């Protein structure tokens, strides 16, 4: 995988890079799909092995979570476990409770009941800033770029608590190496970035703290299809190259299932389906019923 893929395609004007971007977009809906499906098969097999129970515990475990805002219960008895180094896609219609789920995991909403554990450590009801420090990074919907700061300052905020002076510099270098588009814009105000660049910035910023689990809320929201393909590609590479555990909340179920290992469908606050992503994507009845494609 070319590491500068998103940089190249972001520029857009360059003929070769734009072509590559478009090619990837086509591959996703066309022939590439089968190849991905096969990947998924093997990943899925690995998962059932792990899922066998005794061999390896989940990185992130959500058990019987009940949560909501101001008297409205948005989540009821939600249990999800995300295995290390996998992508879990959480799907469902508007108001299904997807965003509440992430906000509860990351501590912004206090659950009424249930537990959230990371590698066996109970994080339920801890403050958001402590949960980040424990290793769960949350990239919210709407991106939360700090527009008054520069690109570099945004990244530095992400690494503030984690590294010593040298470690921070190294993390910054890593981010620039991985995301050349950010290196090019490092001294610009973050408010000047495009939607796709902002999405890359917030993901890169979350990675500055070297999290174990990355929670992504609607990373494709408001992005052009070509950019969505790049962001999905990036998420996949984070799993494959860095072994990151990703929980991906998406309206765009098709794109999410194409890269995910496990698919979870929420409906009015309840888990209605937990299924291997490949199976869920192939099950026409389920797809039509819950996901509308």
């Amino acid at each position, binding site marked *: 995988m070319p590491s500068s893929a998103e940089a190249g395609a972001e520029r857009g004007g360059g003929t070769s890079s734009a072509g590559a971007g478009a090619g990837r977009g086509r591959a996703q809906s066309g022939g590439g799909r089968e190849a991905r499906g096969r990947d998924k098969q093997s990943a899925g097999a690995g998962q059932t092995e792990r899922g066998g129970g005794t061999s390896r515990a989940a990185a992130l475990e959500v058990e019987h979570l009940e949560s909501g805002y101001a008297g409205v219960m948005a989540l009821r008895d939600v249990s999800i476990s995300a295995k290390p180094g996998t992508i879990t896609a959480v799907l469902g219609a508007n108001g299904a409770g997807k965003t509440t789920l992430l906000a509860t995991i990351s501590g912004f909403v206090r659950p009424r009941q249930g537990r959230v554990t990371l590698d066996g450590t109970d994080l339920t009801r801890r403050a958001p800033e402590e949960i*980040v420090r424990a290793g769960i990074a949350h990239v919210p919907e709407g991106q*939360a770029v700090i527009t008054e700061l520069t690109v570099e300052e945004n990244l530095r905020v992400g690494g*503030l608590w984690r590294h010593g002076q040298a470690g921070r510099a190294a993390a910054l270098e890593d981010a620039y190496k991985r995301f050349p588009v950010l290196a090019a814009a490092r001294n610009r105000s973050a408010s000047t970035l495009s939607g796709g660049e902002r999405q890359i910035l917030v993901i890169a910023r979350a990675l500055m*703290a070297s999290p174990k689990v990355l929670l992504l809320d609607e990373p494709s929201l408001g992005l052009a299809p070509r950019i969505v393909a790049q962001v999905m590609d990036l998420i996949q590479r984070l799993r494959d190259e860095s072994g990151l555990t990703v929980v991906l909340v998406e309206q765009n179920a098709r794109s999410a299932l194409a890269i995910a290992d496990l698919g979870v469908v929420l409906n009015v606050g309840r888990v209605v389906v937990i299924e291997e992503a490949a199976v869920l994507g192939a099950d026409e009845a389920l797809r039509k019923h819950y996901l509308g494609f």
Partner: protein
Amino acid sequence: MTEFLQFTLGGVSFGMVYAAIALSLVLIWRGTRILNYSQGAMAVLTTYIALTVINHTGSYWEGFVVALAAGLVLGAVIERTVIRPVENKPPLNAVVVTIGLLVLIEGIAGIIYGGQYRSFPTAFSVTGLHARSVPLGISRNDVFVASAVLVVALALAALFRFTSVGLRLRASAFNPYAARLLGVRVGRVLTLGWALAGLIGALAGLLVSPDTFLYPSSMDSIFVLGFTAAVIGGLDSPVGAIVGGLILGVVLNYVGGYLGSNLVSIFGLVALMAVLLIRPSGLFSVTHERRV
């Protein structure tokens, strides 16, 4: 011409005190969106503490340092105890709390130190300075007043710009939600903001009290002018606070010098109303485009 020069230089010295109060208000406003009406009262209390130390030890500078430290602690304690519960509540709650603090602190100062006017020493001589034989209208102490505020403002700017503490302060002020997401302990950062504001307010109290005398409500009028300076600067901008203070100080000194000193306080209020009516966001406000 000499007169004009004198009024201008004298205005700069006063203006820097307003700027200091404005700066402390801006620091708190940026972090918590709260206007601290008790900033002047806090400065009165720390200046009384300075006076006690000076009377005890005979050293102005010991009193000076103790007052600054007291301002730092007072700001932090107030944020932790009475402000924390009203953060993220409707703005009126905070208004009521800080006005209540104003009354409370001035009352406590009155109980402890009494209501009489006390003179407060200056750091340096107040004899007028001359350039050749032309009187400049300012003293060595006025130069100290202006440079002390300038030094603190520059130190603050450096803190914000070049340190990781400053980055935390800025991130928390601009976008507390994103800052918490990234592991910044925003609560502690807010406490630090209030502590720094307390320190700068204490500095203003020390610098202005030789002119106003010290009594429980001696900072009230200075607070109003400092607030005016902050509003001129846009409440959000530290640089605006300094420039706003300087503009106000110089203009008020012209009013006092050319039109009569009894007009100064009225003119200060007129300026505040004019700014609020004509340009409530201040002369230096940058409207940030927020796209989501």
